[in-house]
């Protein structure tokens, strides 16, 4: 098996260029690649498009900021595609002020759009969103008397994902609900960087227990920041 380079979080962040579209795994910060996120915050790369389930936390009252919330606070995004921004007041402020474009997508549709992007599909038909604002401008296709929305695949320049464990080939094992969007994002970007808590030798992970195959992964980063 090909051994994947283990790089620093700063090196990983440096591979993201101005104007790139990036996917970041995690669900309200659980299962997010926090080490790379903080390195990217340091780099301050601008004009990015973010694809992420949510924008984690930014609470004006308590001052708490977590996960990709640091990047939102740093105004690094031109556009954010997410299913939920309710726990990040800064995302809502930037959206209402017209500073950042925010596209809200139903969570299941977002997961499937990313899956389609990585799976070579031209899109998929979903009943989700029929009759709502989500359907605006989208093609409706009838299948056996039922209406479905045609949703298109999405891909990214870079995906930053997080796993519990990797072998040096890049086979990944996740833990608990920290799996969430990480496996679908692993397949849907031109460059995929996995932040992992533990890196073991090839052969030390039972092939039956690999949850994301190594071929999707380009680089590994050792996690230093876990939340």
């Amino acid at each position: 098996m090909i051994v994947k380079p283990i790089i620093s979080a700063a090196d990983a962040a440096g591979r993201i260029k101005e104007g790139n579209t990036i996917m970041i795994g995690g669900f309200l910060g659980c299962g997010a690649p926090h080490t790379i996120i903080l390195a990217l915050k340091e780099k301050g790369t601008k004009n990015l498009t973010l694809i992420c389930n949510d924008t984690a936390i930014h609470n004006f009252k308590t001052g708490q900021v977590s996960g990709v919330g640091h990047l939102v606070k740093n105004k690094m995004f031109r556009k954010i595609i997410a299913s939920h921004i309710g726990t990040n007041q800064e995302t809502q402020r930037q959206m209402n002020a017209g500073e950042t474009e925010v596209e809200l997508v139903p969570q299941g549709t977002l997961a499937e759009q990313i899956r389609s992007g990585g799976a070579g599909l031209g899109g998929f038909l979903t009943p989700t969103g029929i009759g709502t604002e989500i359907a605006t401008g989208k093609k409706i296709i009838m299948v056996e008397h039922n209406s479905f929305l045609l949703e298109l695949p999405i891909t990214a320049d870079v995906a930053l994902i997080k796993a519990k464990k990797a072998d040096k080939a890049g086979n990944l094992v996740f833990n608990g609900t920290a799996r969430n969007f990480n496996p679908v994002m692993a397949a849907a970007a031109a460059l995929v960087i996995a932040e992992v808590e533990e890196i073991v030798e090839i052969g030390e992970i039972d092939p039956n227990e690999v949850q994301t195959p190594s071929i999707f992964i380009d680089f590994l980063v050792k996690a230093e920041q876990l939340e």
Partner: protein
Amino acid sequence: MEYIPNKEIIAKRIARIFKTGEVVNLGIGLPTMVEKYIAPDINIVLQSENGIMGLGPAPAKGSEDRDITDAGGSPASIRAGGCFFASSVSFSIIRGGHVDYTVLGVLEVDQDGNLANYKVPGKMVPGMGGAMDLTIGARVVIAATLHFLPSGASRLKRHCTLPLTAVHQVNIIVTD
């Protein structure tokens, strides 16, 4: 007559709907309260859209696991026999009709079974999260809501005025 909001009565009534073996997804807020009123002899399976079947109670302080959270991002646990899965699998379960009940919070709900609960344009825009998929996919959609806003306006409408989360999907409204 003075209106005194009563979330407990709503949560208690919803808890009586479920039967052993049914798969239930509880939304954030008032719907989450339902769990503590489920009778001990009723054994339901809680699904959480962030990737758990068999969601357990919140762990005791000090024994939280940062990798096990509920759909609100709070520390959670998993029951014996439960499992974790990716978001894509979670929504295959949800859209695919494998969840019996979804209990969701409300901004407005109307007589045609329409539900609005994800945005007040220009003001509060939290986003729909998994709610659009849950209302489409769950066998029974339960809207859990206080009857009135603090302003005195009813949350139960003839016709919703806010952007809709679900069109003709609500089966049961439980209110105080």
